[in-house]
Protein backbone atom coordinates (compact mmCIF):
# COMPACT_ATOMS: atom_id res chain seq x y z
CA UNK A 1 0.00 0.00 0.00
CA UNK A 2 2.86 2.38 0.81
CA UNK A 3 4.29 1.92 -2.64
CA UNK A 4 0.97 2.64 -4.24
CA UNK A 5 0.62 5.73 -2.07
CA UNK A 6 3.93 6.98 -3.36
CA UNK A 7 2.75 6.35 -6.89
CA UNK A 8 -0.50 8.20 -6.23
CA UNK A 9 1.42 11.11 -4.85
CA UNK A 10 3.73 11.14 -7.86
CA UNK A 11 0.74 10.88 -10.16
CA UNK A 12 -0.93 13.88 -8.57
CA UNK A 13 2.29 15.85 -8.91
CA UNK A 14 2.45 14.86 -12.55
CA UNK A 15 5.74 13.03 -12.03
CA UNK A 16 4.68 9.56 -13.08
CA UNK A 17 5.76 8.02 -16.36
CA UNK A 18 2.84 7.78 -18.82
CA UNK A 19 2.93 3.98 -18.86
CA UNK A 20 2.94 3.83 -15.08
CA UNK A 21 0.18 6.43 -14.91
CA UNK A 22 -2.04 4.37 -17.20
CA UNK A 23 -1.48 1.34 -15.07
CA UNK A 24 -2.24 3.28 -11.92
CA UNK A 25 -5.44 4.71 -13.39
CA UNK A 26 -6.68 1.21 -14.14
CA UNK A 27 -5.87 0.21 -10.58
CA UNK A 28 -7.69 3.23 -9.17
CA UNK A 29 -10.73 2.40 -11.26
CA UNK A 30 -10.85 -1.11 -9.92
CA UNK A 31 -10.30 -0.24 -6.31
CA UNK A 32 -12.71 1.83 -4.17
CA UNK A 33 -10.16 2.33 -1.46
CA UNK A 34 -7.67 3.74 -3.92
CA UNK A 35 -10.28 6.00 -5.43
CA UNK A 36 -11.14 7.35 -2.02
CA UNK A 37 -7.45 7.76 -1.30
CA UNK A 38 -6.96 9.55 -4.57
CA UNK A 39 -9.75 11.97 -3.74
CA UNK A 40 -8.24 12.70 -0.33
CA UNK A 41 -4.75 13.23 -1.71
CA UNK A 42 -6.18 15.63 -4.18
CA UNK A 43 -7.99 17.52 -1.46
CA UNK A 44 -4.84 17.81 0.61
CA UNK A 45 -2.89 19.01 -2.39
CA UNK A 46 -5.53 21.55 -3.15
CA UNK A 47 -5.71 22.96 0.36
CA UNK A 48 -1.91 23.22 0.50
CA UNK A 49 -1.84 25.47 -2.48
CA UNK A 50 -5.21 27.14 -2.11
CA UNK A 51 -3.59 30.36 -1.03
CA UNK A 52 -1.63 30.48 -4.22
CA UNK A 53 -4.75 29.77 -6.22
CA UNK A 54 -6.70 32.49 -4.46
CA UNK A 55 -4.07 35.11 -5.09
CA UNK A 56 -3.23 34.07 -8.56
CA UNK A 57 -6.42 33.24 -10.36
CA UNK A 58 -9.82 34.41 -9.37
CA UNK A 59 -12.57 33.58 -11.77
CA UNK A 60 -15.29 32.90 -9.32
CA UNK A 61 -17.12 36.16 -8.82
CA UNK A 62 -17.90 37.57 -12.21
CA UNK A 63 -16.56 35.45 -15.00
CA UNK A 64 -19.04 36.76 -17.50
CA UNK A 65 -18.19 40.41 -16.88
CA UNK A 66 -14.52 39.67 -17.22
CA UNK A 67 -15.14 37.81 -20.42
CA UNK A 68 -17.17 40.61 -21.86
CA UNK A 69 -14.48 43.16 -21.07
CA UNK A 70 -11.52 41.26 -22.40
CA UNK A 71 -10.97 39.29 -25.55
CA UNK A 72 -9.86 36.13 -23.84
CA UNK A 73 -8.28 32.93 -24.97
CA UNK A 74 -8.43 29.74 -23.04
CA UNK A 75 -5.34 27.67 -23.43
CA UNK A 76 -5.70 23.91 -23.58
CA UNK A 77 -3.68 21.98 -21.10
CA UNK A 78 -4.13 18.26 -21.03
CA UNK A 79 -4.11 15.92 -18.07
CA UNK A 80 -3.09 18.48 -15.58
CA UNK A 81 -4.65 17.94 -12.19
CA UNK A 82 -4.12 21.37 -10.69
CA UNK A 83 -6.80 23.67 -11.99
CA UNK A 84 -8.00 27.20 -11.51
CA UNK A 85 -10.66 27.55 -8.86
CA UNK A 86 -13.47 28.41 -11.22
CA UNK A 87 -12.89 25.42 -13.35
CA UNK A 88 -12.92 23.17 -10.34
CA UNK A 89 -16.23 24.68 -9.55
CA UNK A 90 -17.66 23.63 -12.89
CA UNK A 91 -16.42 20.11 -12.36
CA UNK A 92 -17.63 20.13 -8.80
CA UNK A 93 -21.03 21.18 -9.90
CA UNK A 94 -21.22 18.34 -12.34
CA UNK A 95 -20.94 16.04 -9.40
CA UNK A 96 -23.36 18.03 -7.34
CA UNK A 97 -25.82 17.42 -10.12
CA UNK A 98 -26.08 13.91 -8.87
CA UNK A 99 -28.95 14.99 -6.72
CA UNK A 100 -30.92 16.91 -9.28
CA UNK A 101 -30.81 19.20 -12.22
CA UNK A 102 -27.96 21.60 -12.18
CA UNK A 103 -26.03 23.72 -14.56
CA UNK A 104 -22.46 24.63 -15.16
CA UNK A 105 -21.02 27.66 -16.74
CA UNK A 106 -19.99 26.66 -20.18
CA UNK A 107 -18.86 28.27 -23.32
CA UNK A 108 -21.06 27.57 -26.27
CA UNK A 109 -19.26 27.31 -29.59
CA UNK A 110 -20.68 29.29 -32.47
CA UNK A 111 -18.35 27.59 -34.86
CA UNK A 112 -17.07 24.05 -34.74
CA UNK A 113 -15.02 23.36 -31.67
CA UNK A 114 -11.35 24.03 -32.22
CA UNK A 115 -10.06 21.71 -29.56
CA UNK A 116 -12.24 18.82 -30.44
CA UNK A 117 -12.71 18.98 -34.20
CA UNK A 118 -13.73 15.35 -34.43
CA UNK A 119 -16.28 15.69 -31.67
CA UNK A 120 -19.95 15.30 -32.37
CA UNK A 121 -21.89 18.44 -33.06
CA UNK A 122 -24.13 17.84 -30.08
CA UNK A 123 -21.23 18.09 -27.71
CA UNK A 124 -20.57 21.66 -26.77
CA UNK A 125 -17.07 22.13 -25.48
CA UNK A 126 -14.68 24.96 -24.85
CA UNK A 127 -13.80 27.38 -27.58
CA UNK A 128 -12.19 30.78 -27.46
CA UNK A 129 -14.66 33.39 -26.34
CA UNK A 130 -15.17 36.70 -27.98
CA UNK A 131 -18.47 38.00 -26.72
CA UNK A 132 -20.48 37.90 -23.58
CA UNK A 133 -23.35 36.19 -25.36
CA UNK A 134 -21.22 33.10 -25.82
CA UNK A 135 -21.22 32.33 -22.13
CA UNK A 136 -24.37 30.42 -21.47
CA UNK A 137 -25.19 28.57 -18.31
CA UNK A 138 -26.65 25.28 -19.36
CA UNK A 139 -28.91 23.14 -17.32
CA UNK A 140 -28.23 19.47 -17.03
CA UNK A 141 -31.80 18.58 -17.74
CA UNK A 142 -31.69 20.59 -20.92
CA UNK A 143 -33.89 23.34 -19.54
CA UNK A 144 -32.46 26.75 -18.81
CA UNK A 145 -33.40 29.21 -16.15
CA UNK A 146 -35.78 31.74 -17.63
CA UNK A 147 -33.42 34.67 -17.15
CA UNK A 148 -31.41 36.77 -19.58
CA UNK A 149 -28.24 37.44 -17.58
CA UNK A 150 -25.81 34.50 -17.47
CA UNK A 151 -24.45 35.58 -14.10
CA UNK A 152 -27.95 35.42 -12.59
CA UNK A 153 -28.58 31.95 -14.02
CA UNK A 154 -25.22 30.86 -12.75
CA UNK A 155 -26.05 32.13 -9.26
CA UNK A 156 -29.43 30.35 -9.35
CA UNK A 157 -27.62 27.15 -10.28
CA UNK A 158 -25.29 27.51 -7.33
CA UNK A 159 -28.33 27.96 -5.09
CA UNK A 160 -30.07 24.96 -6.62
CA UNK A 161 -27.05 22.70 -6.17
CA UNK A 162 -26.85 23.72 -2.54
CA UNK A 163 -30.61 23.41 -2.06
CA UNK A 164 -30.57 19.87 -3.40
CA UNK A 165 -28.13 18.89 -0.68
CA UNK A 166 -30.68 19.88 1.90
CA UNK A 167 -33.91 18.61 0.43
CA UNK A 168 -35.38 15.14 0.34
CA UNK A 169 -37.60 14.76 -2.65
CA UNK A 170 -39.97 11.85 -2.66
CA UNK A 171 -38.15 10.49 -5.68
CA UNK A 172 -35.15 10.03 -3.44
CA UNK A 173 -34.66 6.39 -4.32
CA UNK A 174 -33.15 7.36 -7.64
CA UNK A 175 -31.22 10.44 -6.65
CA UNK A 176 -28.66 10.07 -9.41
CA UNK A 177 -31.01 9.73 -12.33
CA UNK A 178 -30.62 13.30 -13.53
CA UNK A 179 -26.85 13.17 -13.91
CA UNK A 180 -26.99 9.99 -15.90
CA UNK A 181 -29.18 11.88 -18.27
CA UNK A 182 -26.66 14.66 -18.09
CA UNK A 183 -24.73 15.77 -21.10
CA UNK A 184 -26.84 14.23 -23.80
CA UNK A 185 -27.52 17.52 -25.47
CA UNK A 186 -25.49 19.80 -23.31
CA UNK A 187 -22.10 19.12 -21.98
CA UNK A 188 -19.95 20.35 -19.19
CA UNK A 189 -17.03 22.47 -20.29
CA UNK A 190 -14.64 19.83 -21.52
CA UNK A 191 -12.48 18.85 -18.55
CA UNK A 192 -9.91 17.30 -20.84
CA UNK A 193 -9.17 20.83 -21.86
CA UNK A 194 -8.10 22.24 -18.56
CA UNK A 195 -8.23 25.96 -18.81
CA UNK A 196 -6.13 28.70 -17.54
CA UNK A 197 -7.53 32.19 -17.50
CA UNK A 198 -5.30 35.18 -17.94
CA UNK A 199 -6.90 38.56 -17.27
CA UNK A 200 -4.41 40.23 -19.59
CA UNK A 201 -5.99 38.46 -22.47
CA UNK A 202 -3.06 36.41 -23.66
CA UNK A 203 -3.13 32.66 -23.48
CA UNK A 204 -0.93 30.81 -21.07
CA UNK A 205 0.49 27.35 -21.25
CA UNK A 206 2.03 25.74 -18.26
Amino acid at each position, binding site marked *: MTKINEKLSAFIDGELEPAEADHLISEILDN*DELRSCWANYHLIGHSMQSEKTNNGIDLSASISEALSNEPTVFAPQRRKLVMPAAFKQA*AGMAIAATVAAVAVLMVQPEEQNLFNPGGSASVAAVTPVTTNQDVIPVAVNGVNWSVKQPSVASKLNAYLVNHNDYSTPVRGTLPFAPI*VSYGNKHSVADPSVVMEYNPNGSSVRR
Partner: protein
Amino acid sequence: MRRGFLIAVLLISNSLAVNAEQIDSDTVREWLSRVTAAGKTINYEGTFVYRHGNDLEAIRIIHKADEKGEHERMISLTGSAREIIRNNELVTCILPDNKSVVVDNKTPGARLPSFPEELAQLDAYYDFTFEGYERVASREARRVVIKPQDRFRYGYRLWIDDAFELLLRSELLDPDGNAVEQIMFTDIKLHESLEDELLKPNLSGREYTWVTDDETAKDTPMPVDASWRVENKPNGFMLAHHNMHNLPESNLPVEHLVYTDGLAWVSVYIEKLTNGAETLQGASNMGAVNAFGRIMGQYHITAVGEVPAVTVELLSSSVVHTK
Protein backbone atom coordinates in the same frame (compact mmCIF):
# COMPACT_ATOMS: atom_id res chain seq x y z
CA MET B 1 -59.85 -22.93 5.44
CA ARG B 2 -57.20 -22.26 2.86
CA ARG B 3 -59.76 -21.60 0.18
CA GLY B 4 -61.58 -19.20 2.51
CA PHE B 5 -58.38 -17.26 3.00
CA LEU B 6 -57.79 -17.11 -0.72
CA ILE B 7 -61.28 -15.81 -1.35
CA ALA B 8 -60.85 -13.22 1.40
CA VAL B 9 -57.61 -12.05 -0.20
CA LEU B 10 -59.25 -11.89 -3.61
CA LEU B 11 -62.17 -9.92 -2.22
CA ILE B 12 -59.88 -7.44 -0.50
CA SER B 13 -57.65 -6.85 -3.47
CA ASN B 14 -60.67 -6.63 -5.72
CA SER B 15 -62.34 -4.01 -3.60
CA LEU B 16 -59.09 -2.05 -3.48
CA ALA B 17 -58.76 -2.18 -7.21
CA VAL B 18 -62.28 -0.98 -7.84
CA ASN B 19 -62.73 1.66 -5.18
CA ALA B 20 -59.97 4.15 -4.81
CA GLU B 21 -60.02 4.67 -1.10
CA GLN B 22 -58.79 7.33 1.23
CA ILE B 23 -55.92 6.14 3.35
CA ASP B 24 -54.34 8.00 6.19
CA SER B 25 -50.98 9.70 5.92
CA ASP B 26 -49.45 7.33 8.47
CA THR B 27 -49.98 4.41 6.12
CA VAL B 28 -48.59 6.25 3.12
CA ARG B 29 -45.63 7.57 5.07
CA GLU B 30 -44.96 4.05 6.23
CA TRP B 31 -45.13 2.88 2.62
CA LEU B 32 -42.76 5.66 1.63
CA SER B 33 -40.27 4.85 4.35
CA ARG B 34 -40.40 1.21 3.26
CA VAL B 35 -39.81 2.38 -0.33
CA THR B 36 -36.72 4.24 0.81
CA ALA B 37 -35.47 1.23 2.74
CA ALA B 38 -36.21 -1.16 -0.12
CA GLY B 39 -34.33 1.08 -2.56
CA LYS B 40 -31.27 0.75 -0.37
CA THR B 41 -31.34 -2.89 0.61
CA ILE B 42 -32.55 -4.84 -2.42
CA ASN B 43 -30.31 -6.26 -5.15
CA TYR B 44 -31.75 -5.47 -8.52
CA GLU B 45 -30.96 -4.63 -12.08
CA GLY B 46 -33.26 -2.89 -14.47
CA THR B 47 -33.91 -0.15 -16.97
CA PHE B 48 -35.86 3.00 -16.36
CA VAL B 49 -36.91 5.88 -18.55
CA TYR B 50 -36.62 9.43 -17.33
CA ARG B 51 -38.76 12.14 -18.87
CA HIS B 52 -38.09 15.78 -18.12
CA GLY B 53 -39.42 18.56 -20.26
CA ASN B 54 -39.53 17.17 -23.78
CA ASP B 55 -36.57 14.86 -23.26
CA LEU B 56 -36.83 11.14 -22.79
CA GLU B 57 -33.89 9.02 -21.77
CA ALA B 58 -33.26 5.41 -20.85
CA ILE B 59 -30.92 4.41 -18.07
CA ARG B 60 -29.72 0.99 -16.95
CA ILE B 61 -29.26 0.52 -13.21
CA ILE B 62 -27.56 -2.21 -11.22
CA HIS B 63 -27.93 -1.99 -7.47
CA LYS B 64 -26.28 -4.19 -4.89
CA ALA B 65 -26.44 -4.12 -1.13
CA ASP B 66 -24.15 -6.20 1.06
CA GLU B 67 -22.34 -6.01 4.39
CA LYS B 68 -20.11 -3.27 2.96
CA GLY B 69 -23.09 -1.12 2.09
CA GLU B 70 -24.60 0.08 -1.15
CA HIS B 71 -23.08 -0.27 -4.59
CA GLU B 72 -24.72 1.10 -7.64
CA ARG B 73 -23.93 1.53 -11.29
CA MET B 74 -25.98 3.52 -13.78
CA ILE B 75 -25.35 3.55 -17.48
CA SER B 76 -27.02 5.91 -19.86
CA LEU B 77 -28.49 3.93 -22.77
CA THR B 78 -29.33 7.00 -24.82
CA GLY B 79 -26.95 9.70 -25.93
CA SER B 80 -23.36 9.24 -24.89
CA ALA B 81 -22.53 6.32 -22.60
CA ARG B 82 -22.25 8.18 -19.32
CA GLU B 83 -21.79 6.07 -16.23
CA ILE B 84 -22.11 6.61 -12.54
CA ILE B 85 -20.57 4.23 -10.03
CA ARG B 86 -21.59 4.75 -6.45
CA ASN B 87 -20.05 2.96 -3.51
CA ASN B 88 -21.84 4.24 -0.45
CA GLU B 89 -20.81 7.89 -0.38
CA LEU B 90 -18.12 7.66 -3.02
CA VAL B 91 -19.55 8.72 -6.36
CA THR B 92 -17.62 8.36 -9.60
CA CYS B 93 -19.04 9.85 -12.79
CA ILE B 94 -17.61 8.86 -16.12
CA LEU B 95 -18.35 11.31 -18.89
CA PRO B 96 -16.97 9.87 -22.13
CA ASP B 97 -17.81 12.96 -24.18
CA ASN B 98 -15.45 14.92 -22.01
CA LYS B 99 -13.04 12.02 -21.48
CA SER B 100 -13.31 12.76 -17.81
CA VAL B 101 -13.90 10.99 -14.55
CA VAL B 102 -15.33 12.97 -11.67
CA VAL B 103 -14.95 11.61 -8.16
CA ASP B 104 -16.91 12.91 -5.22
CA ASN B 105 -16.29 11.79 -1.67
CA LYS B 106 -19.34 12.69 0.34
CA THR B 107 -19.28 12.54 4.09
CA PRO B 108 -21.72 9.81 5.06
CA GLY B 109 -24.96 11.17 6.35
CA ALA B 110 -23.60 14.64 6.99
CA ARG B 111 -25.96 16.30 4.59
CA LEU B 112 -28.95 14.02 4.70
CA PRO B 113 -31.83 15.85 6.31
CA SER B 114 -34.46 13.97 8.27
CA PHE B 115 -38.14 14.69 8.45
CA PRO B 116 -38.80 16.92 11.45
CA GLU B 117 -41.06 15.11 13.89
CA GLU B 118 -43.59 17.90 14.25
CA LEU B 119 -44.38 17.52 10.54
CA ALA B 120 -45.98 14.16 11.12
CA GLN B 121 -49.43 15.41 10.21
CA LEU B 122 -48.93 15.57 6.46
CA ASP B 123 -52.61 14.91 5.90
CA ALA B 124 -53.38 18.47 6.99
CA TYR B 125 -51.89 19.66 3.68
CA TYR B 126 -52.14 16.68 1.35
CA ASP B 127 -54.73 14.08 0.47
CA PHE B 128 -53.35 10.59 0.21
CA THR B 129 -55.26 8.32 -2.09
CA PHE B 130 -54.66 4.71 -2.88
CA GLU B 131 -55.89 4.25 -6.41
CA GLY B 132 -55.60 0.51 -6.74
CA TYR B 133 -53.23 -1.79 -8.56
CA GLU B 134 -51.54 -1.28 -11.88
CA ARG B 135 -48.80 -3.07 -13.78
CA VAL B 136 -45.43 -1.38 -14.17
CA ALA B 137 -42.46 -3.23 -15.69
CA SER B 138 -44.74 -6.28 -15.71
CA ARG B 139 -44.97 -6.19 -11.94
CA GLU B 140 -47.95 -5.48 -9.74
CA ALA B 141 -47.77 -2.01 -8.25
CA ARG B 142 -49.84 0.04 -5.80
CA ARG B 143 -50.73 3.40 -7.24
CA VAL B 144 -50.72 6.21 -4.70
CA VAL B 145 -51.60 9.84 -5.31
CA ILE B 146 -50.41 12.57 -3.00
CA LYS B 147 -52.52 15.59 -3.83
CA PRO B 148 -51.87 18.97 -2.23
CA GLN B 149 -54.87 20.73 -0.69
CA ASP B 150 -53.72 24.12 -1.93
CA ARG B 151 -51.69 25.46 -4.85
CA PHE B 152 -48.51 26.03 -2.82
CA ARG B 153 -47.00 22.58 -3.42
CA TYR B 154 -46.65 19.92 -6.08
CA GLY B 155 -48.31 16.55 -5.96
CA TYR B 156 -46.99 13.08 -6.66
CA ARG B 157 -48.23 9.94 -8.30
CA LEU B 158 -46.26 6.91 -7.19
CA TRP B 159 -46.30 3.29 -8.21
CA ILE B 160 -44.90 1.04 -5.49
CA ASP B 161 -43.97 -2.58 -6.14
CA ASP B 162 -46.56 -4.58 -4.25
CA ALA B 163 -44.20 -7.36 -3.24
CA PHE B 164 -40.88 -5.60 -2.61
CA GLU B 165 -41.87 -1.95 -2.07
CA LEU B 166 -39.50 -0.62 -4.69
CA LEU B 167 -40.58 2.55 -6.42
CA LEU B 168 -41.34 1.47 -9.99
CA ARG B 169 -42.66 4.71 -11.34
CA SER B 170 -43.08 8.26 -10.10
CA GLU B 171 -44.53 11.49 -11.40
CA LEU B 172 -44.22 15.01 -10.11
CA LEU B 173 -47.55 16.81 -10.61
CA ASP B 174 -48.16 20.53 -11.00
CA PRO B 175 -51.19 22.10 -9.23
CA ASP B 176 -53.39 21.18 -12.20
CA GLY B 177 -52.36 17.54 -11.95
CA ASN B 178 -50.10 17.47 -15.02
CA ALA B 179 -46.92 15.41 -14.77
CA VAL B 180 -43.89 17.69 -15.04
CA GLU B 181 -41.30 14.97 -14.48
CA GLN B 182 -41.49 11.19 -14.67
CA ILE B 183 -39.34 8.18 -13.92
CA MET B 184 -40.53 4.70 -14.86
CA PHE B 185 -38.91 1.28 -14.84
CA THR B 186 -39.52 -0.65 -18.02
CA ASP B 187 -37.97 -3.81 -16.66
CA ILE B 188 -36.57 -4.81 -13.32
CA LYS B 189 -35.12 -8.04 -11.98
CA LEU B 190 -34.57 -8.75 -8.32
CA HIS B 191 -31.62 -10.89 -7.28
CA GLU B 192 -30.49 -12.76 -4.20
CA SER B 193 -26.97 -11.60 -4.95
CA LEU B 194 -25.13 -9.86 -7.76
CA GLU B 195 -21.65 -10.39 -9.17
CA ASP B 196 -19.24 -7.56 -8.37
CA GLU B 197 -18.17 -7.74 -11.99
CA LEU B 198 -21.48 -6.15 -13.04
CA LEU B 199 -20.64 -3.04 -11.05
CA LYS B 200 -17.28 -2.37 -12.67
CA PRO B 201 -17.04 0.59 -15.00
CA ASN B 202 -16.79 -0.08 -18.68
CA LEU B 203 -13.62 1.83 -19.48
CA SER B 204 -9.89 1.47 -19.22
CA GLY B 205 -9.17 4.87 -17.74
CA ARG B 206 -6.74 5.76 -20.46
CA GLU B 207 -6.87 9.30 -21.77
CA TYR B 208 -9.30 10.29 -19.08
CA THR B 209 -8.91 13.38 -16.96
CA TRP B 210 -9.69 12.95 -13.30
CA VAL B 211 -11.45 15.65 -11.41
CA THR B 212 -12.28 15.73 -7.74
CA ASP B 213 -15.08 17.70 -6.27
CA ASP B 214 -13.95 19.53 -3.17
CA GLU B 215 -16.84 21.94 -2.79
CA THR B 216 -18.13 19.95 0.13
CA ALA B 217 -14.93 20.57 2.04
CA LYS B 218 -15.29 24.31 1.62
CA ASP B 219 -18.78 24.34 3.06
CA THR B 220 -17.82 24.55 6.71
CA PRO B 221 -20.48 25.69 9.18
CA MET B 222 -20.47 29.34 10.19
CA PRO B 223 -22.56 31.19 12.77
CA VAL B 224 -26.03 32.21 11.62
CA ASP B 225 -28.02 35.36 12.18
CA ALA B 226 -31.16 34.11 13.92
CA SER B 227 -33.02 37.37 13.38
CA TRP B 228 -33.67 36.47 9.75
CA ARG B 229 -36.99 34.76 9.28
CA VAL B 230 -39.91 34.32 6.92
CA GLU B 231 -43.14 35.78 8.28
CA ASN B 232 -45.76 34.45 5.86
CA LYS B 233 -45.46 30.86 4.82
CA PRO B 234 -47.97 28.50 3.24
CA ASN B 235 -49.65 26.33 5.87
CA GLY B 236 -47.42 23.64 7.24
CA PHE B 237 -44.06 25.00 6.06
CA MET B 238 -41.57 25.01 8.92
CA LEU B 239 -37.90 25.85 9.29
CA ALA B 240 -35.83 22.67 8.90
CA HIS B 241 -32.30 24.11 8.63
CA HIS B 242 -30.67 27.45 9.14
CA ASN B 243 -27.08 27.62 7.92
CA MET B 244 -24.45 30.00 6.70
CA HIS B 245 -22.42 28.88 3.67
CA ASN B 246 -19.82 30.05 1.27
CA LEU B 247 -21.29 29.13 -2.09
CA PRO B 248 -18.82 28.39 -4.87
CA GLU B 249 -20.30 31.05 -7.11
CA SER B 250 -19.55 34.08 -4.96
CA ASN B 251 -17.31 33.05 -2.07
CA LEU B 252 -19.41 35.41 0.04
CA PRO B 253 -21.25 34.08 3.07
CA VAL B 254 -24.89 33.33 2.36
CA GLU B 255 -27.59 32.96 4.96
CA HIS B 256 -29.60 29.84 4.12
CA LEU B 257 -33.01 28.98 5.53
CA VAL B 258 -34.70 25.73 4.49
CA TYR B 259 -38.45 25.36 4.85
CA THR B 260 -40.39 22.16 4.37
CA ASP B 261 -43.85 20.79 4.92
CA GLY B 262 -42.39 17.28 4.98
CA LEU B 263 -42.62 16.70 1.23
CA ALA B 264 -41.92 20.03 -0.45
CA TRP B 265 -38.64 21.85 0.20
CA VAL B 266 -37.82 25.50 -0.36
CA SER B 267 -34.55 27.29 0.32
CA VAL B 268 -34.33 30.99 1.07
CA TYR B 269 -30.90 32.56 0.45
CA ILE B 270 -29.98 35.95 1.85
CA GLU B 271 -26.85 37.52 0.51
CA LYS B 272 -25.27 40.93 1.00
CA LEU B 273 -25.43 42.99 -2.19
CA THR B 274 -22.13 43.46 -3.97
CA ASN B 275 -21.30 46.30 -6.32
CA GLY B 276 -22.07 45.62 -9.93
CA ALA B 277 -23.39 42.09 -9.42
CA GLU B 278 -26.57 41.35 -11.32
CA THR B 279 -29.37 39.87 -9.27
CA LEU B 280 -32.61 38.05 -9.92
CA GLN B 281 -35.54 40.38 -9.43
CA GLY B 282 -38.86 38.69 -9.84
CA ALA B 283 -39.66 35.16 -10.94
CA SER B 284 -37.65 32.59 -12.87
CA ASN B 285 -37.98 28.87 -13.36
CA MET B 286 -36.16 25.85 -14.69
CA GLY B 287 -38.59 23.09 -15.42
CA ALA B 288 -40.45 22.34 -12.19
CA VAL B 289 -38.00 24.35 -10.09
CA ASN B 290 -39.07 27.91 -9.34
CA ALA B 291 -37.16 30.87 -7.98
CA PHE B 292 -38.08 34.38 -6.90
CA GLY B 293 -35.63 37.16 -6.07
CA ARG B 294 -35.88 40.65 -4.61
CA ILE B 295 -33.73 43.30 -3.02
CA MET B 296 -34.28 44.29 0.59
CA GLY B 297 -32.04 47.10 1.82
CA GLN B 298 -28.44 45.92 1.62
CA TYR B 299 -29.47 42.35 0.88
CA HIS B 300 -30.64 40.22 -2.00
CA ILE B 301 -33.15 37.52 -1.19
CA THR B 302 -33.83 34.47 -3.35
CA ALA B 303 -36.26 31.63 -2.70
CA VAL B 304 -35.62 28.43 -4.70
CA GLY B 305 -37.35 25.08 -4.68
CA GLU B 306 -39.31 22.40 -6.43
CA VAL B 307 -42.59 24.13 -5.65
CA PRO B 308 -45.02 26.25 -7.67
CA ALA B 309 -44.08 29.87 -8.48
CA VAL B 310 -46.54 31.36 -5.95
CA THR B 311 -44.73 29.60 -3.10
CA VAL B 312 -41.26 31.01 -3.80
CA GLU B 313 -42.77 34.44 -4.36
CA LEU B 314 -44.58 34.34 -1.03
CA LEU B 315 -41.52 33.15 0.89
CA SER B 316 -39.14 35.58 -0.76
CA SER B 317 -41.49 38.51 -0.17
CA SER B 318 -42.05 37.63 3.48
CA VAL B 319 -38.44 37.66 4.67
CA VAL B 320 -37.89 40.01 7.60
CA HIS B 321 -34.88 40.93 9.69
CA THR B 322 -36.04 41.49 13.25
CA LYS B 323 -33.32 43.47 14.89
